[in-house]
């Protein structure tokens, strides 16, 4: 069910990401202010944007699950949030490296995007513990969906609030360039952004397919075990176990 389009998507990911990185190092000019360090921008910002979109998508699938009761939407929501969380960690780490390289410190409170990300990360880090602490699969899925929706609504509000809080006193520290972006930079950024988004969808489908295969295996095991008298233990899990 989920594997449809996986092969073309993965090929597109390779082309776009490798292409983007080639553009970053061979095509895009060095930034006037920050020099070579600014190249991190082409990695950090696309990862951050895609992570946020992934979180919101998790909320959208949560809505779909609550509306239809179809557990495959819960699985889609879970995987989207799972991957976005990892991307969020990557965004925080690369952002921190950028801050260190450009500003000398490992963390800057002046950069609203980085701060907002920290808050969003703290929130979504609760998703898996929350799921794990509820045993009944139906209730787990429903509670997780509610959380995904509330958290998804929170993301834009949070960014707005943090940006308001910092903008009054401090200028943006980690901006792409001093002023507007020249054409070559813009193109490179766009390719990187699209590539990251396609990569996300690829990894998402990959994970979904793998989980579905495990589920079907487990169901097969259970069906066969009934006749075989061998006990198949069921473990508590944060991830959806059955579609």
């Amino acid at each position, binding site marked *: 069910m989920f594997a449809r389009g996986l092969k073309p998507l993965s090929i597109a990911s390779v082309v776009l990401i490798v292409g983007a990185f080639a553009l970053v190092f061979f095509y895009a000019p060095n930034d006037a202010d920050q020099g070579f360090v600014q190249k991190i921008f082409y990695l950090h910002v696309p990862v951050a944007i895609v992570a946020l979109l992934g979180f919101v998508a998790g909320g959208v699938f949560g809505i779909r699950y*609550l509306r239809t009761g179809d557990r495959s939407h819960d699985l889609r929501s879970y995987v989207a949030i799972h991957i976005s969380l990892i991307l969020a960690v990557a965004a925080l780490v690369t952002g921190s490296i950028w801050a260190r390289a450009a500003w000398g410190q490992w963390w800057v409170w002046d950069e609203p995007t980085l701060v907002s990300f920290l*808050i*969003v990360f*703290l*929130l979504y*880090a*609760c998703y898996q*513990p*929350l799921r794990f*602490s*509820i*045993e009944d699969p139906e*209730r787990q899925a*429903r*509670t997780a*969906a*509610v*959380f995904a*929706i*509330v*958290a998804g*609504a*929170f993301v834009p*509000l*949070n960014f*707005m*609030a*943090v940006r*308001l*809080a910092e903008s009054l006193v401090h200028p943006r520290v980690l901006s792409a360039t001093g002023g507007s972006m020249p054409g070559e930079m813009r193109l490179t950024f766009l390719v990187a952004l699209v590539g990251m988004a396609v990569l996300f969808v690829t990894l998402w489908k990959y994970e979904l397919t793998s989980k579905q295969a495990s589920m079907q295996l487990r169901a097969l095991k259970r069906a066969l075990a009934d006749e075989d008298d061998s006990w198949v233990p069921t473990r508590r899990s944060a991830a959806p176990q059955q579609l």
Partner: protein
Amino acid sequence: MRRAVAAVIRKDLRIELRTGEAVPAMLLFSVSTFVLFHFALDRASVEGELAAGVLWVTLLFAAVLGMSRLFVAEREQGGFDGFLLAPVDRTSLFVAKAAVLFAFLAAVELAAVPAFAILLLGPSPWPAAGELVLVLLLADLGIAVIGTLVGALGIQTRARELIVPIIALPLMIPLAIAAARATSPLFLEAGAEALPGRWLLVLGLYDLVFGLVAFAVFDFLLEE
């Protein structure tokens, strides 16, 4: 729906008045935290941004205390089942519980803010009392909405006391930002300045968005 809401509110307020579990504990916690801040910061008085920060951090943590307990009675004594069987709109439970949490917060603040003024606050809060009350009301509304949502989420789990704080605190950070930024000019030693209107707008927007989200989503938490 209004009667169902009123009934639940009356029940919870009556329970609280009779047994007095939540509000005294939240109040005690707040005052202890003020004392803790005195020693941790090593200051006899705070003003301006520091005062606003101390006050709001304390209030938020006290609120988190109250959130976990909000639905405990329903869970342990079958109140959820009774509510589901009754022919009422399920969202009325949300409205009622949010109103109850709001009332608890208001009651706590009625004593905690004066305690703060006596113990730690340098300048007098009186000149800006009206604006302070406005900020408190708007922020309490947001805390009530978030608290009811997270309390209902937490009641589904086995690790309620752990899950509720870690989910509620990040969610309330925009609230903390707006409330602290709005309050800090009111606590200035030199004399209270005007309240920055933009933060009131942020508070209002936050309350509105999460109120709507909670309204839409709360039903699903009640299904068995």
